[in-house]
């Protein structure tokens, strides 16, 4: 079942192609299957770099978990919006940049732009993990504006923008915003 799921994620991305803002409705239980599908089955095989924007779990934790699951983390870059606010020691690595808070939305746009610059023309898969976490920290108006700016910019770069969402835990106004901003919402149950 889980093998099917990560393969399905990759198939879906292949099917929709670049410059399509895709929201993936996930469940906590299938989170790592979905991430494996995005990174291993899709981005690695296509030679894309993955820019993983995390507002849920510190990049170091996520990176460690992915390595333990033997997910190919070459070409994986993190925009970590969590670690600073935890006030712990920050593990600085070449593939991670930090944003002080998930409320510094413009800085997230700029960090993605930074990775795009150093990628030197390689196409990108950009994962927003998750809209639930961003909705907890941000007002819906500014979050909507951020999503519009980000999606427009990523589409112009012919990137693959993917927004992870846990629908059961999402505020109705955030759900409505996602419907407006994303071209396609795919339930993965």
């Amino acid at each position, binding site marked *: 079942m889980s093998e099917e799921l990560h393969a399905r994620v990759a198939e879906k991305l292949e099917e929709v192609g670049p410059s399509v803002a895709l929201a993936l409705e996930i469940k906590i239980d299938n989170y790592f299957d979905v991430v494996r599908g995005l990174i291993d089955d899709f981005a690695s095989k296509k030679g894309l770099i993955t820019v993983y924007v995390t507002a849920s779990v510190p990049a170091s934790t996520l990176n460690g978990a992915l390595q333990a699951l033997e997910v190919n983390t070459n070409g994986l870059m993190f925009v970590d919006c969590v670690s600073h606010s935890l006030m712990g020691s920050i593990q600085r690595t070449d593939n991670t940049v930090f944003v002080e808070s998930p*409320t510094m939305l*413009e*800085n997230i746009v*700029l960090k993605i732009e930074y990775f795009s*610059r150093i990628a030197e023309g390689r196409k990108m898969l950009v994962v927003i993990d998750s809209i639930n976490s961003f909705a907890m920290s941000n*007002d819906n108006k500014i979050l909507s*504006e951020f999503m519009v700016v980000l999606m427009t910019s990523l589409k112009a770069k012919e990137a693959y923008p993917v927004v992870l969402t846990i629908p059961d835990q999402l505020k109705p106004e955030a759900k409505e915003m996602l419907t407006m901003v994303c071209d396609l919402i795919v339930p993965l149950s």
Partner: protein
Amino acid sequence: MAKSGERDRCVTGIDGLDNILGGGIPRSNIVLVAGACGTGKTTLAFEFLVRGSLMGESGLLISTVESQDKLVSNIPHFIFFNDKMLVKGQVAIMELEHLLESANLSPSKMDEAAVKKLVSAIGKTVAASKVKRLVIDSIDTILGEIKDEALNALLLSDLSIILYKNECTALLVTSEETCKTIEGRVADGIIMMGNHERRGDLLRTMQVIKMKATSHSRSKYVIDLTPAGVLVTPILKGGS
């Protein structure tokens, strides 16, 4: 290539800024880069020189406060910057002290004659090395030594004439206060660097307040100082 009737542009090479300016700074303009400490003025100005060097335009930075080594070490190490640019003189850094010495000037005696002599010394250096991009960081040190508004205006207007003749575009790094005085009126352009506080977060910002000879955006943008250069994005308003 400039459209007919338009001033030729000095493409800064900083994409976001060039977009704001509609293609770059009108060539030979004197632009004040103003703002508080830590807002990215020096980084922006240094990138302007490095990008110019990559486009074949020689740059000169006159440092009035820091030594070359300290200045370079304080700037993010741009991935497109190579130390050879300094060695080969494509980006030259000169300390003000050396410039004053070479012109037999003393910072404590900056009268009208000394101001003219200083401008002439800058002009000679610009002409001799075919400098197309000049940065003075910060101009406040020089203006502070002069201590006279009329002489400060004279310095900038004479500098403007000399740079125009040499087709040299200049960024003068300065404080926010200077823009409000006569220098702000004499300069061709003002780029204001600042901070925007939102719910306890401090974002670095950039705003082009004035730029002669071009129409430009007057909105505020958020910037980030990265090894890939100064990156720019519109500030989010969020209904506020």
